[in-house]
């Protein structure tokens, strides 16, 4: 690449955190350890120890017409094996969760290959071949992308990102997939991401400290760092907004076009 990507504008810590998320060279701090098997059971796509189901034979065994693009692009491991496409979906609380849907979309696009991601107001889904999904999930769950209290792993019934937290600081979950243990101060998942009960609970660690979350969050909030405090970010957003509005309506273009038709352009 001949240029250095800037990722996102802004001069506050929020903007810096966003850039850190998006920069594939930036190593996110690992703060917890979760077994591979536990991640597989929370995802709920296959049983731990079960082999991957495939939707087509391995690419090497398949016959293709000659296509230059296939030589240029290296397939990801899951695609080589012909694995299924599966998903992981997160809901992020508005109360200073480390990531948020748009940040996740940009991060996934710049950090991982071969992903399809969908952004909604309260949740963010990532779809990729199952083999690669588990590696990505491990990275997303073990690093500072994830907070057990303010981030939820939710496949269905995601409602809760904009609600008040409960007395222990946990985000609302109608299906109560995760529970807080007041004695050990630990959060553990008792259901998989769609709400099917797990045989053994999966511990995902302690909720992060509220003050620490204020430092690592990517959400502008008036009680932490408001967006209006970030001059550079506001300037960039306004520039894009104006350009889109003018360009979208075609104000200047239309005026000149009309003048030309009226013979008034000389």
């Amino acid at each position, binding site marked *: 690449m001949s240029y250095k990507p800037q990722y996102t504008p802004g001069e506050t810590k929020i903007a810096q955190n966003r850039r850190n998320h998006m920069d594939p060279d930036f190593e996110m701090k690992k703060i917890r350890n979760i077994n591979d098997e536990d991640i597989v059971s929370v995802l*709920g796509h296959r049983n731990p120890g079960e082999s991957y189901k495939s939707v087509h034979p391995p690419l090497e065994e398949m016959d293709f017409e000659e296509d230059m693009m296939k030589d240029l692009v290296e397939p990801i491991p899951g695609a080589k094996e012909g694995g299924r496409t599966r998903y992981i979906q997160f809901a992020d609380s508005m109360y200073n969760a480390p990531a948020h849907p748009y940040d996740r979309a940009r991060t996934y696009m710049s950090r991982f290959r071969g992903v399809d991601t969908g952004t909604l107001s309260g949740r963010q889904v990532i779809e990729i071949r199952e083999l690669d999904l588990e590696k990505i999930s491990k990275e997303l769950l073990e690093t500072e992308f994830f907070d057990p209290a303010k981030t939820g792993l939710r*496949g*269905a*019934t995601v*409602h*809760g990102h904009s*609600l*008040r*937290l*409960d*007395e222990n*600081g946990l985000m*609302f979950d*109608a*299906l*109560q997939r995760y*529970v807080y243990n007041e004695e050990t101060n630990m959060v553990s998942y008792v*259901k998989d991401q*769609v*709400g*099917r*009960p797990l045989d053994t609970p999966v511990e995902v660690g302690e909720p992060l400290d509220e003050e620490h979350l204020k430092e690592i969050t990517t959400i502008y909030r008036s009680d932490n760092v408001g967006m209006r405090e970030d001059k550079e970010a506001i300037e960039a957003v306004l520039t894009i907004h104006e350009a889109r509005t003018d360009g979208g309506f075609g104000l200047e273009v239309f005026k000149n076009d009309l003048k030309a038709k009226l013979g008034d352009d000389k």
Partner: protein
Amino acid sequence: MEPIKAIDVRIFPHRRLKPGTTEKILNELLDLEGVLRFLVNGESLPKVVGYGPARGTSVNHPDRKIITVKGKEVELLVSVGDIVVTIRHENLEEFVEKTKTILEETLNFGFDVRVGIFTRTKTTVSDNLKVAYGIEEDFDPNMVGLVDPKAKSKETVKLIGD
């Protein structure tokens, strides 16, 4: 029926309340003078999973519990977000003052107490239809504003005390 002067007080804690805390607050508020009725509001909690691959399995939400208010058992159907108390107008000032003290002692986070009208005051078409079609017999005018138009009073209203 003789009309009385009543007003609502809305208690809005900055966190959603656990069943234990709700029970404690409701019991203490019931001891205050002039209390007519309570409306416990919040995000509803399903009994079984409604959709998705886990459809039909029971949820067992720890917030959907049976609490005891003045000796009567009440099932919480919601994760408690706010409590609206209708009180007699003459007890208003004293009630608000005492409520604030109770909340300060019980909660370790912020709350708002607002005075105003937070429930419906007139019977609606749905209310009248409930009586006209025999969906509910002896519809009590005291319950106007407490019951959701689609819900039955028997299922969502609990009578405590006299």
